[in-house]
């Protein structure tokens, strides 16, 4: 049996090489791709149904609210002041919501389960992987999934005749930006969670954000103080950003929205990284 003889030294040698290449502290080993490869393989063999359902959720909203409700509402005023159909008005908002939901699900519930029940990370961390490899790999997978959903949803918008400008293609990278913001923060927040009851608080924050972030009607319906509050929330910036892109209207506010997410990503990555030792290395 050759496990007992021949290849032993050769294998040992390659292990040494691998170890020599990465001396980047105790939490990172530059091997994010192994975590990503694992995620893709797992998706292929078991999770693809979950993926498909995630794609249909915003599409169903768009059909019921946009087409159904839109028949009563008629046309509304878009970001540039032009008249657009109600479906075209809410479609980018739904895309932003779906980017948020997907990223939050992947970085909170999914991470919580893999950490506490499947013990997946426990096994990973007994290898050369550091916690930062694992975190970045999981965030990358969440973004990849988000990019696929965004592409699909944008295609549906195109088919429904809701796209009037080539700028709309930029909704896809913008969705990934939004997802990145939520995913990096979600993972940091999950590190504080101990029980399922605590995990429910996440939904408690997400549902009102979905309903009130100018998703289905303009912000101007609220009194000024509530407007300020909503403008401080991340989803509103995502909704406005995608809505502007969808009609190709760019203002200084566009830069503010993008900047909001860049700062959110930076803070989220900082939070997650600083929590990784607590999260994984007790």
């Amino acid at each position, binding site marked *: 049996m050759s496990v007992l003889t021949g290849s032993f030294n050769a*294998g040992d040698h390659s292990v040494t090489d691998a170890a020599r290449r990465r001396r980047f502290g105790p939490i990172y080993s530059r091997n994010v791709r192994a975590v990503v490869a694992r995620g893709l393989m797992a998706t292929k063999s078991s999770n693809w149904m979950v993926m498909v359902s995630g794609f249909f959720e915003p599409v169903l909203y768009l059909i019921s609210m946009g087409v159904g409700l839109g028949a009563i509402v008629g046309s509304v005023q878009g970001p540039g002041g032009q008249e657009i159909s109600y479906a075209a008005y809410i479609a980018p908002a739904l895309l932003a919501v779906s980017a948020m939901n997907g990223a939050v699900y992947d970085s909170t519930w999914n991470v919580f389960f893999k950490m506490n029940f499947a013990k997946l990370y426990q096994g990973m961390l007994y290898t050369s992987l550091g916690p930062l490899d694992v975190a970045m790999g999981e965030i990358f997978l969440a973004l990849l999934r988000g990019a696929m959903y965004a592409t699909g949803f944008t295609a549906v918008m195109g088919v429904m005749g809701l796209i009037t400008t080539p700028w709309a293609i930029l909704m896809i990278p913008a969705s990934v930006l939004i997802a990145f913001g939520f995913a990096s923060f979600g993972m940091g927040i999950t590190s504080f969670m101990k029980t399922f009851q605590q995990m429910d608080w996440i939904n408690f924050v997400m549902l009102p954000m979905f309903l009130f972030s100018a998703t289905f009607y303009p912000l101007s319906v609220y009194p000024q103080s509530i407007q300020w509050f909503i403008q401080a929330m991340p989803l509103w910036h995502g909704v406005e950003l995608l809505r502007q892109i969808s009609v190709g209207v760019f203002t200084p506010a566009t830069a503010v929205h993008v900047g909001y997410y860049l700062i959110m990503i930076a803070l989220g990555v900082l939070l997650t990284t600083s929590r990784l030792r607590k999260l994984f290395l007790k």
Partner: protein
Amino acid sequence: MRVSELASKESRVTNHSDATPQYVITAENLTKRYGDVTAVDSISFRVPAGEAFGLLGPNGAGKSTTMKMIGGVSQRTSGSLHIMGLDPEQHGPEVRAHLGVVPQQDNLDEELKVRDNLLVYGRYFGLPMSYLKPKADELLEFAQLTDKAKSKVDALSGGMKRRLTIARSLINEPRILLLDEPTTGLDPQARHILWDRLFRLKEQGVTLILTTHYMDEAEQLCDRLIVVDKGKIMAEGSPASLIREYSTREVLELRFGSERNASIGAELEGIGERLETLPDRVLIYAHDGEAALEQVTARGLRPVTSLVRRSSLEDVFLRLTGRSLVD
């Protein structure tokens, strides 16, 4: 050529510290506290390359915590620890490149098939597919799981999962294998297969670090062991030397019926080297068990049953860690 490569690696690795090179693990005053609880209380030990080293102790003795610190996934409170000359807290990924870990609970990737578990795990070490594919097949054969290669992990029996976990821990050809209660929950057949596999690895020069509370397992596998209780080392040595030191050559077990066991102690005074009265039986520790039994009958005592047996590690363990339940 390969030998020289290994030799140069050895010197490179050990240059990092003053730890003596022939020891793959050196722990000094290693301590771990969780809040007020001291799980590991200033223990020191060294493990030379190629040894099978056992950590024995009741539940909560600090065995698993020690294992976690060796793997660099738990941070020590104080003391020093070097694995192949490196501090696992500073060089976690690098230390773990040389470790194989079999945790107490199987944590196989249930979303992947059996063979993919091995391949993906190897990727975590940054190993190339060209190496991993033949290696995975080899390990499946080693673990007697070749015909299960395409099965789901769910479909495996407890013993198969355990063997797969061990196969997985070998994917990087580790120099040190950490086994945390490797045979808990397995039937006798599965245990013996595992022991055989571990023995072969030891023959290859792999250092085995093993926790167990099966004394027969420790006697079978360990060259040397420490008995740990409440975070402290109670005794250290080979199984045979521990038996010599903490027990007698033989043990005479007598049963007088549960009512009389307690009161008979005084009448047995002076026979053998040590006497222990348990609710169901009386144990006399003696060099010669048969001779002790003759003395018992010579005093006119008639036990319901009597049994002379060799002293085992279990006697040592119970003497050192006590008979009361640990919760």
